[in-house]
Structure formats: structure tokens, C-alpha cells
């Protein structure tokens, strides 16, 4: 966020959060403070042991005693302090010490790149990495570009890798879009390369270890205020990276839900460009950097998305380097597909920024904020339903915008062959087993791939999915060969490996991960393949 807007934003966020707490009276104020102190103490206790921990804890204890003894005026002041601190932290808390340490650990080639003195310079030098022609931005790019001056863009991509931010930052920059405001988890800053991009993306920090409800409210209000100020923004509506490899079907509607109040406030305040345009985006990778960790996490039934991965392939610069080298060697592409923008209520928007219905008639979206036959009415429950509706459209858009690579197609075909071999086994047994006599015949797998490819070509013709050029042009056998090579160049253990005319499922978890990307299209019979 630009410096001149920061103080205004902080004041706005603080007044909204404090206002909403104190609206509930003395009891609500007390509860909010007690909760925050509880959650913050817990967080500090969980953290690494140090002298600062004792100091921090005693600071919270002081606040607690203030809270117990103080009047409502004192409590309100404590709350204001807290919220202000949280807000300032969110706006810009970049720890240079962490950054410097991580930079030293980067291998030479990358670190030379990283020592570019500014993000601008870095972007300029990015092509030297060779990734520039690997990222292909396609879909409704012109449509979104036409809207950037008519209102505020809310970009909502799928999320499968921490590299998403780099790809997005670079891809959107190349297409001439302005930087996007983005809430990035602290763990992302562990990787210095991404750290730079984060800042260029206009990142603010999200500390997932902070669990106090007030902190979450600050994040949400800040996102909303930024939208009202006209900052083009980026949210990942899936919340975290897809663990299973599937395209997200369950969206977190919290941040997405800030769009309607932002629109309503801008309308009420008669701001010049009150409209918001939600741009669905799909990032498609032939190989996913963190595939191994993600699918393991998915399969650990206990952990799921609650478990925060702090150390994965992404925090190892070497793995990132290997991954990028893999992408280069394979002549693989990363697709960033933009789908036609929608308004916050889910309706399509034309290039003039007008919301339209199925017959192309313009919709006056301000009427959605009114009671039936009446005046504007504040109704959070109603707005939540609108957002849910928008979410359903996004899920359908994601399926349409997804690009299928050979790795997905071959994994899908091989996995369904394994399932048919053992119809009685549940998913876990299927993943555990792997005797030699369970290998597939190369020719069988190739034929199966041809069948799936045929179905995919039909889906593509109906506009329900996108295919990479290799999936479009190669036959089943070549697809298998290519997929094997792709996995082999990067993953520690490839999902499939070849022994003469036989194919072994070497890493079934990985196979499941890549297979899951084709969930939701009604391919084959047994789907979706979930652990429940």
C-alpha cells in the first residue's frame, strides 16, 4: 500500500474493528480482550524458548491486570492499542534479519539474481532465468485489462504451490497489470526470491500463528479497506495450497466476502469507481514443486489444512533451483489462465464493466443491496449468501480454466487401472500395496491414456477444460513416455517408472496427487477419490 494511504487505512481498520467490538457493550469488550490475551500467550508459549519470551509474556500479563482492574475506558484504550499494533504489523512487518540469513544460503546462480537492488531490476533480469517464456498467460486477459481502470480488480486464483505468487507476480506484470495487494503468510518470506516478489506484489503479512479472533478481523477489514481505496487485490479463495492436488471445490468465503461490503461502502460514500471485478484465475503446472509434501499432509488424516507446513521444498532454495531447472529442461509451460470477470454477486461482467444476465441485459447490481421493493438495507446474512453464490461460480470457472498436462492424464489412467485391479481395496490399502506383480503393461496403460484423452478432447470442445499442447497432440504411448520423463527430472521418486514393457507405480501417493487434478470432470467411474 502506498505510504500516503497507510495512515488512513490504519485509522479506518482500527475504527471498524474497535467499533464492531464495542457495539456489543462492556461484556463484548471484555471478552475480546480476554480472548486476545489468551491466544497471544498461547502463541508465545508455543514459540521457541528465549529471553524475549519471558519479556513478551510479562507484557501480556501487564495487559491482563489492566483489563481486570480497569474501567471500560481503559479497556477500550487497551483494545485500540492492540488493534493498532496488529494493523501496523500486517501492513509491513518484514524482518530483515530473516531475509539476510536466507539470502546467504542461496546457491550462487540464484543469489546473483537476488542481489538485484530492486524488485523492478529483478523483474527486468528475470528473463535470464529463462522462465519468461515458460509462463504463458492466456484466457480473458484483454477483458480483465479493459476493466482495470473502471474499478478494482479482485484476482482469485487457484492455489497449488508457493511459487504461485511468483508466477502471478511475473505473469501479471508482463501483461501490464499494476501490482496486486496480497496477504502473504510469513513462511513465504523464508524464501528470499519470493520475498522480493511478495513486496513487488504489494504483499502484506499474514502471521498464521496468530489465532486471536481480533487479529483475523484486522486482516479481513484491512483487505476490505484496501479494496475500497481502489487497490487491485489478490486472494487465494482456497485458503491454503490444495493438499490433495484437486482443484479447490470448497472455498473460504471470508476474504471473498469483503467484496460486497466494500462495494456497498463505496456506493454509500459516492466514491468515483465503486465497482469490483472478480477475476477467476487458474494456475496449471506440469510438475508441482511441493507435490510430495502436500500429498503426504493430505493423507495424514489428522493434520489436513489445520497443520501449517513451515518447512517444505519451498524453503529449500536448492529444491526450487532443481525444480526450475526441471521446468527448463522439459520445455514445460506454466499456464496462468484468466477467466471472464464477474461482479461480487457472481454475474458476468462485460468489457465496459457492466454486469449482464444470460440474455446480455444489463443488471443494476446496486439493487442487490436493497430490501425487496425498497431501500438499501444492511443484511450481512444476505451478503454471505451472495458470496456463497459467487463461490459456486468460481468453482465451476476453475474447472473450465484448468489445463491438463500429460502428468495428470497419465496419473489418472494409471490410478484407475490400479483401482480396477483391486476393486475391493480402499484408498489406503491401494496406496500401501505395490508388489511387483502389480505392474501395468506399457501397452495397456497407453491404450487407457488414449481413452481418457478422447474424453478430454470432447470436454475441451465443449469448453469444460483446457488441454496442454502435448495432451492435444501426443498419443497415449508418447504421453506415458513424456510423463515419466517429467516426474523423473524433478521428483525424488517418480510416480511411475518403466521396466521394459512394464510400468511400476513407484510412488503411489504422488500418482494420486497428480491424478486428483482431474477430479470433478466425471471421467471414469470411481470418483472423486477422497479419503473419507
Amino acid at each position: 500500500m502506498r505510504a500516503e494511504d497507510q495512515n488512513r487505512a490504519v485509522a479506518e481498520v482500527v475504527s471498524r474493528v474497535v467499533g464492531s467490538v464495542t457495539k456489543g457493550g462492556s461484556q463484548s469488550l471484555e471478552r475480546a480482550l480476554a480472548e486476545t490475551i489468551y491466544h497471544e500467550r498461547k502463541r508465545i508459549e508455543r514459540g521457541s524458548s528465549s529471553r524475549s519470551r519471558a519479556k513478551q509474556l510479562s507484557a501480556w500479563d501487564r495487559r491482563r491486570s489492566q483489563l481486570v482492574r480497569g474501567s471500560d475506558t481503559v479497556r477500550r484504550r487497551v483494545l485500540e492499542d492492540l488493534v493498532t499494533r496488529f494493523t501496523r504489523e500486517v501492513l509491513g512487518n518484514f524482518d530483515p534479519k530473516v531475509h539476510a540469513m536466507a539470502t546467504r544460503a542461496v546457491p550462487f546462480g540464484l543469489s546473483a539474481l537476488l542481489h538485484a537492488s530492486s524488485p523492478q531490476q529483478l523483474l527486468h533480469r528475470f528473463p535470464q532465468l529463462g522462465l519468461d517464456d515458460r509462463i504463458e498467460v492466456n484466457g480473458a486477459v484483454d477483458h480483465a485489462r479493459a476493466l482495470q481502470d473502471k474499478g478494482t480488480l479482485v484476482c482469485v486464483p487457484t492455489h497449488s504451490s508457493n511459487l504461485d505468487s511468483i508466477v502471478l507476480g511475473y505473469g501479471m506484470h508482463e501483461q501490464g497489470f499494476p501490482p496486486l495487494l496480497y496477504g502473504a503468510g510469513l513462511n513465504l518470506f523464508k524464501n528470499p526470491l519470493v520475498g522480493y516478489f511478495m513486496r513487488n506484489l504489494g504483499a502484506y503479512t499474514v502471521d498464521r500463528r496468530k489465532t486471536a479472533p481480533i487479529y483475523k478481523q484486522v486482516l479481513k477489514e484491512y483487505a476490505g479497506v484496501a479494496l475500497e481505496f481502489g487497490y487491485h487485490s489478490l486472494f487465494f479463495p482456497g485458503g491454503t495450497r490444495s493438499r490433495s492436488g484437486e482443484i479447490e471445490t470448497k472455498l473460504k468465503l471470508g476474504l471473498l466476502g469483503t467484496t460486497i461490503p466494500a462495494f456497498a461502502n463505496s456506493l454509500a460514500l459516492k466514491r468515483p469507481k465503486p465497482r469490483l471485478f472478480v477475476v477467476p484465475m487458474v494456475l496449471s503446472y506440469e510438475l508441482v514443486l511441493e507435490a510430495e509434501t502436500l500429498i503426504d499432509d493430505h493423507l495424514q488424516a489428522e493434520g489436513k489444512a489445520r497443520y501449517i507446513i513451515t518447512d517444505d521444498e519451498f524453503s529449500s532454495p536448492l529444491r526450487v533451483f532443481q525444480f526450475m531447472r526441471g521446468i527448463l529442461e522439459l520445455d514445460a509451460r506454466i499456464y496462468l489462465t484468466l477467466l471472464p470477470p464477474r461482479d461480487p454477486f457472481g454475474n458476468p461482467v462485460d468489457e465496459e464493466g457492466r454486469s449482464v444476465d444470460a440474455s446480455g441485459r444489463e443488471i443494476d447490481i446496486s439493487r442487490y443491496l436493497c430490501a425487496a421493493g425498497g431501500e438499501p438495507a444492511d443484511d450481512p446474512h444476505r451478503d454471505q449468501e451472495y458470496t456463497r453464490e459467487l463461490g459456486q461460480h468460481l468453482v465451476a470457472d476453475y474447472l473450465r480454466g484448468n489445463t491438463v498436462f500429460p502428468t495428470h492424464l497419465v496419473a489418472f489412467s494409471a490410478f484407475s487401472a490400479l483401482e480396477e485391479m483391486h476393486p475391493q481395496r480402499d484408498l489406503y490399502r491401494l496406496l500401501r500395496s505395490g508388489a511387483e506383480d502389480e505392474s501395468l503393461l506399457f501397452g495397456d496403460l497407453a491404450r487407457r491414456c488414449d481413452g481418457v484423452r478422447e474424453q478430454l478432447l470432447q470436454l475441451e470442445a465443449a469448453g469444460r477444460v483446457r488441454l496442454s499442447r502435448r495432451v492435444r497432440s501426443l498419443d497415449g504411448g508418447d504421453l506415458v513416455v513424456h510423463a515419466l520423463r517429467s516426474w523423473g527430472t524433478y521428483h525424488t521418486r517418480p510416480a511411475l517408472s518403466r521396466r521394459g514393457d512394464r510400468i511400476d507405480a513407484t510412488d503411489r501417493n504422488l500418482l494420486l496427487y497428480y491424478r486428483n487434478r482431474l477430479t470433478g470432470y466425471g471421467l471414469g467411474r470411481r470418483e472423486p477419490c477422497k479419503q473419507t
Partner: protein
Amino acid sequence: MQADVAVLGGGSWGTILAHLAAHNGQRTALWMRNPQACETLNATHTNPRYLGETPLAEGITATTELGEAVRGTPVVIFCVPSKASRAVARQAGEFLTGDQVVLSATKGLEPESFHTVTELLRAETCALKIGAISGPNLAKEIVRGQPSATVVASRFHEVIVRATEALHSSLFRIYGQDDLRGVELAGALKNVIAIACGAAAGLGFGHNVRAMLVTRGLAEIQRLGVKLGADPLTFSGLAGVGDLLVTCGSELSRNFRVGRGVAQGKTLAQVVEELGEVAEGVNTTHVALALASREEVAMPITEAVKDLLDGKVAAQEILQDLMGRAARYEIDFDYTAEVSA
């Protein structure tokens, strides 16, 4: 005059809904296609074609102009046959705005797309505050002043509140629900079972057969509904079992009469001709089977109804086939499991 409520469709159920709203003191517009019926209703407050000489509430104004009924009216109720719903929705979309509450009172599914009527309304108009009305409501009983209850389903609280304001009275109780999908599916699918019950009556069977068809029929439509995202409990409510009880035993139910007529040896075309009204169950039978095959759900009674309506197999034989199926467990966690030693 700006209406409070608009009802689109001047068949028996649409006319009754308009009557109930007007009875509640709402200024009610009723959109009808037929200019003569429209004129008659405004002049005499009757709808002779569907409801005989029964007098209707005076607050109803009939019109053949869709825009006049829809424009600016806070609550709009669609009550046209499912086959015509999309076209009417598209036309009405010209006049609708996002604040308006829109309800569907049609118990059917669109033949080609398998969409429920509210899905059509969403697809063809800008309306978002959408809901459905469904329940055991025989028009001819309500118009005689007999009490009745129904479900209004919507994810939007405002829709339930506005529909209740418009329609709830000592004659007509409204229950709110948020399982819109379940309510629409229950209302549509139960018509198929009504045809089966009509056929059983036509063959001269008594209460045992009817009870069997109703409960086992409910089990199969619930099974399909749940696959399609409905809450199973909805099928035990007014829109499910409530509506089944009425349509499966009443001479006043169109779908029941279709089943009875065909079982007695008439052709489907003859029966529909005699009825003079749309029986949604005929179309729903085909949609239900297509959905059942897609979702891999067993629906033996629905299949039997299809055979019956096709007229290729005698009714008696169809029933024998149903009875000849293997024994199964009633609460079917796994429907394919047969009882065997």
C-alpha cells in the same frame, strides 16, 4: 396500481396462490396468457376453467402483460409448467431487478437440462433472492376454505420472511426451510410415486399396496435426492412425505389420475387429454430415470412407472415384476445388498 405480489401463471395452483395472497390483504397481480380468462377473472372473480364458479378474493387483478405484473413488485411467484418455465423466466428477466424476491411454485424439472425451476430462474434472470414453495396443497381443497400447510425454502432469510408475509394465514401455514434443493426435488419426484399409486388403485388394489408404494417410493426418491445434494430430513417433511400422502391417495391429484387411467387400459395421450391440465409427473419420470442412471441410484418403482406410461407392458405384469424382486434390507446403507442366508 403497484402490486405487492405477482403470480405468473393462471392455472389452478397459480390462481389459488393469488387468492391466498389477496385474501391476506396483498395487492395481487395475476399474469395469465389467455386474454379471455383474464377478462373473466377481472369481471367475475372466478377462474371457471380450473376452479369452476368458486369466488376468488377481490384483491386480484389479472393481466396478460408480464411487465405490468413483474415490474417493481416485491414478491414474484412463478407458477407455470416446468416446460414453459425457462421461456417465461427469460421474458420476466426483462423486468426483474436484484432486490425482488422470486419464488417458484412449480413441482417439476426441466426435461433437457434436468434443472430445477429455481436453477432456471437463476440462470435466466438477474434474481438472486430465490426460493421455492412446495407442500401438500390441493388447489381444490384450499379454494373451498380448508386449511393447509406448505414449505417455503430458500437460503435467503428475506425470501422466507416475505413469502410468509404474503401468504401465511389461518388458512395457509408456512414453514421456512433452507434446503432449497431438497424441497424442489422432493416436490418434483413425488409425482412419479403418485402415478404408481394411481396405477395400483386402477388395478383395484387396496391400502397395503398403496402404503408399500408410498414408503418404498419415498425411499428411492430420497436416495436420488441425497445423491443430488438434498438433506434426507427434507423428505420426511411437508414437501416430501406430506405431499406424497396427499397425491398418492387423492382423486384430486392429476398425477394419481394419470396412473389410474393408464392402469385401466387408456393410453397416456387419452388420459392427458381428459385431464385438461399438465401432469408434471409424466415428464419427471423420464428426468428422474436419467438422473438415476447418471448417479447410479436404483429406482425400481420409477422404472416401473416409465414402463407403465410407455404402454408396452400391462400394469398387472409390472406390479408382478416389482414384487418378484429379491428381498432386501429396509434401511439400505448398501442398497445392492440382498437378504440371503
